[in-house]
């Protein structure tokens, strides 16, 4: 029969609508003001003891808190009724966590207040972008050029030393361009002697002979080695930044590699950019020292914390972390146990060798030194003022027995897998990282974020009302069907964005507004077609059918081409453009579905299978 949907189509539409409602529902619950406590070690869960300590502190201070919990991600969330209480409670909890064992990051957060039954269905509200919640966005570039230059510099000293040791006389060593080192010799015999000496030792370089004034040997770093060094420099910087972001007390930071040599840092809620930059720019340092002999005079020793105990080391430093070129987790080929392989630069290798060859059997400690900031709270003129003061943390991260005179590359064994990983990260964090600078920064104040949300919501609702009103006046009953479709469309759009975890940004809201305006297009196409067919003398039922059928290809072509544009927009776009492209693409898909399926179902329900003389269109 004309204009009757088979049951499965009606069920499909119904299912889509129900799913749409469920998955868009979490967005109507306003988030709670919450304080989040997470472990400073990324990814580690907090203990219930920590939760108890935090709860006890707010209980004692008499705050009106509710729903304290440890989230599935392993963070503590404690919710409060007002933002004033939330801020005051943060400093109370911070003080309490400072005394508790372990290291914690305490931050303000907006906790989703999604009801349990929705959570069980994995329905989550949309995430807000920085422009809507306020915060800082940094784009940092890692100076990978200098990594290569440094490698060539250290190669130069290395090669000179090797040749001297082997009594091979060279005339000059220089780097004519990036990644290349030329060593020239008196004649070709010396050169081939040098080549056979060096070639086996520097696998990351390709060797070739050349002739200038004198015969020379060219060492060119391979692309593979460059890539590896760059990757290493980036991951090292990523790790360093992650460690420091912890100090800023950010609830949901994002630290991510972007492209070849960039790092994105998003810090929602952070307002003090100057402070953020200072902390991100800090350098941790590393020292290697021998353990003091039991009879050493007190004046030559110094105590550090080592896994909760005291370790007494010599004051004299063997070498510092800036000599560490690389540190990787590896496995002992004999025992299969984890170990950390450390590579020093040539000067570091000399120092290490000289110091260790007479001290075999003693223990060597690795000291990790970091400058952190601590917040303290003071009453000034009756107002509590936060003061940040830097303090230095020094601790021994490894204490291992020296088993031989250590060369440039050595290893630390006797570690657990977790310990080895941690140590290699710390060694790298303390090593001289490639230089990093900010190439883009965007800060949005908290008040501005809220204003953007309000204005966005306002423009969506006004735009929507205007369109709904117009459609109703212009197409009457069919307008009502289109309007129902439009509401379903919006619901589906929000549901899809929420469930795929897309981030809503200001341009994204603009995309939603635009979708509202353009989504009715498909319906308009169908309705004008129905009007035409009526005029051509078709019966109401056939006109409805013909209208939907004939408009189909047009709608498909028009939307597919727009979708192509939206996808291109997404793939080339950054930041604001991407946010717009996502909503636009999803909007095109949902509006095609609603216009072709939902509106049709509604019209069918209203007119289908009945004997009607005229249409209200």
């Amino acid at each position: 029969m004309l204009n009757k949907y088979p049951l499965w189509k009606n069920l499909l539409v119904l299912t889509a609508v129900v799913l749409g409602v469920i998955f868009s529902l979490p967005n109507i619950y306003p988030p709670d003001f919450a304080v989040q406590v997470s472990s400073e070690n990324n990814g580690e869960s907090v203990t219930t003891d920590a939760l108890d300590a935090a709860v006890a502190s707010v209980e004692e201070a008499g705050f009106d808190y509710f729903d304290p919990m440890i989230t599935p991600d392993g963070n503590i969330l404690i919710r409060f009724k007002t933002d004033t209480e939330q801020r005051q409670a943060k400093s109370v909890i911070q003080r309490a966590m400072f005394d508790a064992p372990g290291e914690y990051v305490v931050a303000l957060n907006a906790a989703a207040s999604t009801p349990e039954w929705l959570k069980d269905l994995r329905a989550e509200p949309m995430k807000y972008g920085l422009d809507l919640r306020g915060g800082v966005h940094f784009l940092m570039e890692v100076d990978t050029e200098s990594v290569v230059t440094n490698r060539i510099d250290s190669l130069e000293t290395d090669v000179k030393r090797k040749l001297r040791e082997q009594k091979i006389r060279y005339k000059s060593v220089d780097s004519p361009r990036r990644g290349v080192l030329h060593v020239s010799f008196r004649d070709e015999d010396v050169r081939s002697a040098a080549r056979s000496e060096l070639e086996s030792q520097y696998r990351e370089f390709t060797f070739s002979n050349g002739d200038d004034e004198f015969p020379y040997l060219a060492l060119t770093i391979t692309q593979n080695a460059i890539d590896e060094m760059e990757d290493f420099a980036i991951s090292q910087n990523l790790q360093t930044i992650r460690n420091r972001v912890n100090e800023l007390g950010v609830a949901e930071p994002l630290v991510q590699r972007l492209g070849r040599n960039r790092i994105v840092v998003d810090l929602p809620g952070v307002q003090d950019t100057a402070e953020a930059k200072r902390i991100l720019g800090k350098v941790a340092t590393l020292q290697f020292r021998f353990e003091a002999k039991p009879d050493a005079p007190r004046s030559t020793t110094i105590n550090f914390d080592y896994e909760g105990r005291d370790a007494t080391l010599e004051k004299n430093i063997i070498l510092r972390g800036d000599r560490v070129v690389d540190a990787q987790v590896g496995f002992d080929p004999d025992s299969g146990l984890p170990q950390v392989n450390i590579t020093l630069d040539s000067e570091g290798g000399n120092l290490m060798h000289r110091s260790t060859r007479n001290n075999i059997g003693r223990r060597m400690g690795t000291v990790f030194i970091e400058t952190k900031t601590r917040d303290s709270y003071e009453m000034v003129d009756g107002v509590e003022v936060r003061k940040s003061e830097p303090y230095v943390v020094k601790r021994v991260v490894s204490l291992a027995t020296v088993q031989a005179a250590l060369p440039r590359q050595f290893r630390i064994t006797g570690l657990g897998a977790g310990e080895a990983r941690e140590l290699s990260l710390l060694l790298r964090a303390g090593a001289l990282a490639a230089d990093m600078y900010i190439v883009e920064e965007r800060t949005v104040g908290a008040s501005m974020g809220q204003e953007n949300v309000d204005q966005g919501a306002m423009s969506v609702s006004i735009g929507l009302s205007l369109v709904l009103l117009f459609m109703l006046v212009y197409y009457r009953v069919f307008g009502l069907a289109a309007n129902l479709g439009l509401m379903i469309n919006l619901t589906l759009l929000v549901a899809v964005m929420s469930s795929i975890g897309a981030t809503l940004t200001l341009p994204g809201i603009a995309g939603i507004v635009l979708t509202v305006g353009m989504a009715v297009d498909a319906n308009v196409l169908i309705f004008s077609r129905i009007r035409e067919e009526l005029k051509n003398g078709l019966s109401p039922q056939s006109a409805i059918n013909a209208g939907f059928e004939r408009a189909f290809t047009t709608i498909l072509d028009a939307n597919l081409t727009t979708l192509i544009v939206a996808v291109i927009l997404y793939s080339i776009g950054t930041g604001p453009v991407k946010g717009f492209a996502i909503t636009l693409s999803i909007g095109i898909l949902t509006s095609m579905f609603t216009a072709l399926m939902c509106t049709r179902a509604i019209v069918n329900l209203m007119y289908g299978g009945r004997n009607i003389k005229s249409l209200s269109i």
Partner: protein
Amino acid sequence: MKEFNIDFMGFRKIATICSLVLVVASLASLAINQLNWGLDFTGGSLVEVEYENSANPNAIRLQLDEAGFQGHVVQFFGSDKDILVRIPPQKNLTDKENARLGDRITAVLKEGGQGVDLRRSEFVGPAVGEELTNQGGLGLLAALGSVMVYIAFRFQLKFAIGAVTALFHDVIITLGAFSIIGWDFDLTVVAALLAVIGYSLNDTIVVSDRVRENFRKIRKSNPTAIINTSLNQTLGRTLVTSFTTLLVLVALLVMGGEQIRGFAIGLTIGVVIGTYSSIYIAANVLLAMGISKEDLAIPIKEGQDDPDMMEMPDR
């Protein structure tokens, strides 16, 4: 309901002249005035602050001059309490110091005595700006190219040329408007331009679709008459859709706030121009290229008779 019977193609000469004038004026302005490139493309720093009471831009300029900043632009942003300061990279500073320019400006403004609240601060390095410019241009070209291929494949090459001509027309005139009036051209405007391409395309395809249908259906008529009929048949839909889109854009313009004003303006201009171009440019180009029934004839396969029936089987 209304019925349209307008001799669109009778005005095609006038329309062509109008379009040419607009395009030439736009290109001239783009060549002479260029665009008022926003921070996203030029690089530099931007700080938006809110003063407790109404702010005095002249005093702020003086304040910044005294602090030794060069080339700064101070303007109201939205209200008389809101101040936007834009400043190019300072030549006497290193890259690292330039990255901290925003903080320093905020600090200077806060010294002015009045309560100052930082609303937004941005810094874009010169290299990033250059990349964004290239990406934006590349994106526009990629969009135009792939759309042309799609239409040539789904319709016919002449339609593709018509549609892409209309798109170039729309993009150039929208860009021209930004150049002539001197509005800030930032990334959101690029997004708007691409949305204009999407929108205008939508319109053009609807019209083309009808032109194709009518060429196959109406047997005894000349191309001009067929195109006129098609335009009249789709005019109601074209106007209604443009109207609803403009409705929401006005809502966005009025309520959306300063930050997406550029986007809303760009789209509004684009939608108006796009509506016009789908009527006059795309169809005009089709006529100029001598579109005929033969271009749209469907190769008849065995067992199928009426091409019209094949395309839209009546159920």
